[in-house]
């Protein structure tokens, strides 16, 4: 008689495998991200040899100290590298927001742009920028944060009791986007100068052109804090699979977790919008792609979405700079061209309620 294989004898091997797999996965992700950033930094209007680029990156990070052409080094360090890093942070942050909102609202279409949170952040930022609200004491980021919280409140109020009605929150998001976009257009068309208008319109579709090192620091800090917070809530997010009451019955302090994570999402969205404008569909597409790779469990989903989002955004920025020679498209155009069809596919695939 053959002895029965008990789960105990398999446990050590399974444990080693479960440890090895994430290391491999995230290692590959980090390598891909580094490669994407290196690619984005080495390609541009002014041709810079690849070796110079690498040396300049090394210099910027303090790893190497190679004497280089000053202009070349400055282009790489102050323009391209900072731009690529902010792009990576934005992609990571928006993907994280999407994953969180999809779990909390139990809606596969939820993300900051679709729900109008980005629109609210834009309104807040424009109000500070054009109207000078707060008399200079209020920064653009704070304005965007207040705006995104306002949009969040509007969506929640419009869909009251959101989680039980999956489609209603999307409709509320549509209404909220329209409202805040109208407010933005009103502020811009009545108060801004012609030059400001052109700048703002470009910026509303997403623009990584103006970012420098201070933005890199802010973006990295915000994404890091948000990521750690969300990861700490990963099991709570899993518990939301069957809704709020089910989560509460599993011992999750539902109100506290929702409040914390909605605040983090609003803050993250606001930080990103105030730096680079409203970029749509990243938060929608990336979590779904990540789920295809690692499944729906949030401990694995969140880091995967973070890395995938970062890589996607760096590459999207590269495409936006290359696709029309001599000028760069707003990055929101590129992400929407990828994201809108995916939105349609998700909508089409959505299962009818049982």
């Amino acid at each position, binding site marked *: 008689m053959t002895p029965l294989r008990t*789960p105990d004898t398999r446990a050590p091997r399974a444990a080693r495998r479960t440890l090895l797999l994430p290391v491999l996965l995230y290692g590959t992700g980090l390598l891909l991200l580094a490669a994407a950033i290196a690619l984005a930094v080495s390609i541009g209007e002014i041709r810079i040899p690849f070796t110079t680029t690498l040396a300049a990156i090394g210099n910027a990070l303090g790893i190497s100290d190679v004497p280089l052409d000053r202009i070349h080094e400055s282009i790489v360090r102050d323009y391209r590298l900072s731009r690529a890093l902010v792009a990576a942070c934005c992609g990571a942050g928006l993907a994280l927001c999407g994953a969180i909102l999809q779990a909390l609202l139990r809606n*596969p279409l939820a993300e900051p742009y679709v729900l109008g949170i980005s629109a609210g952040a834009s309104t807040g930022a424009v109000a500070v920028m054009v109207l000078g609200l707060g008399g200079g004491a209020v920064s653009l980021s704070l304005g965007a944060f207040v705006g995104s919280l306002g949009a969040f409140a509007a969506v929640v109020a419009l869909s009251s009791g959101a989680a039980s009605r999956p489609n209603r929150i999307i409709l509320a998001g549509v209404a909220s986007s329209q409202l805040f976009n109208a407010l933005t257009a009103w502020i811009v068309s009545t108060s801004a100068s012609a030059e400001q208008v052109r700048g703002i319109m470009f910026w509303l579709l997403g623009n990584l052109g103006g970012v420098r090192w201070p933005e890199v620091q802010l973006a990295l800090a915000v994404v890091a804090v948000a990521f750690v917070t969300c990861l700490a809530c990963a099991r709570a997010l899993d518990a939301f*699979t069957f809704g709020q009451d089910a989560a509460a019955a599993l011992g999750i302090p539902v109100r506290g977790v929702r409040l914390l994570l909605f605040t983090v999402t609003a803050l993250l969205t606001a930080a990103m919008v105030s730096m680079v404008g409203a970029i749509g569909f990243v938060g929608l597409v990336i979590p779904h792609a990540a789920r295809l790779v690692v499944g729906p469990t949030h401990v694995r989903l969140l880091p995967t979405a973070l890395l995938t989002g970062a890589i996607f955004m760096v590459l999207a920025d590269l495409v936006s700079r290359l696709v029309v020679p001599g000028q760069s498209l707003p990055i929101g155009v590129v992400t929407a061209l990828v994201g809108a069809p995916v939105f349609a596919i998700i909508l089409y695939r959505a299962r009818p309620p049982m």
Partner: protein
Amino acid sequence: MPIEAHEVSWSTAGRLIVDRVSLALQPGQTVGLLGPNGAGKSSLLRLLCGLRRASAGVITFDEVPLTRLKRRDLARRLALVEQSATTDADITVLDVVRLGRTPWRSLLAGWRGEDSAAVEQALARVAMSERRHQQWHTLSGGERQRVHIARALAQQPGELLLDEPTNHLDIQHQLDILALIRRLETTCVMALHDLNLAAMFCDQLVLMKAGRVVAAGEPASVLTPQRIHEVYGVAAVVERSPHHGCLQVHYLPRTDRPGPGPER
């Protein structure tokens, strides 16, 4: 006495849904909550597991008021199976059952041997061990309900609350689920609609109407023709079945209104 409710009331939007309900649950029993739609069965279950806060009255667990217990401690002792709860996520049977370990896991601790053991036991209990890797959305209604029960059992609760566990199931699966619940050693409280199935599978019945408990006790003392008429407005004859020995309710056609005929 593990769980007791003392004069518990709950109202929402100005309407009184649960009206001064008192009851005590005996360990190991299977209790059926009966009553017409809107009688307050689901609300009472939600009050008992702390998902809603009573507007008056007290619920106690081993004489400790529910409001003084932490959500997590409550989840370790009490599990809830909701009415046909589902999800769009691409999640497997195993993933769902593992959710039951949520209240037992600390923030940083990984998956432990005792978690695996509880999940294995729960899967075996509902005969879903072989299908652990099946996707949730490919399961039938009855199978989903069994997985939900396994998830609840993985919580290793002292008491299990079930909100209409047989809803939307065909008769075979209804009998299947109820027999499964009946076999559990855990104290079970379930909201039910079918009086005959309740009489077959429950030790105790609680009959509710308009938020109040009309009768509570053994099936024979609760299911009388007078009470059935009082609560449901239906005439019935109740007798002991010669086939299975449980009470059997025969509903009679209405006589207070002319039936379908020429004279209307």
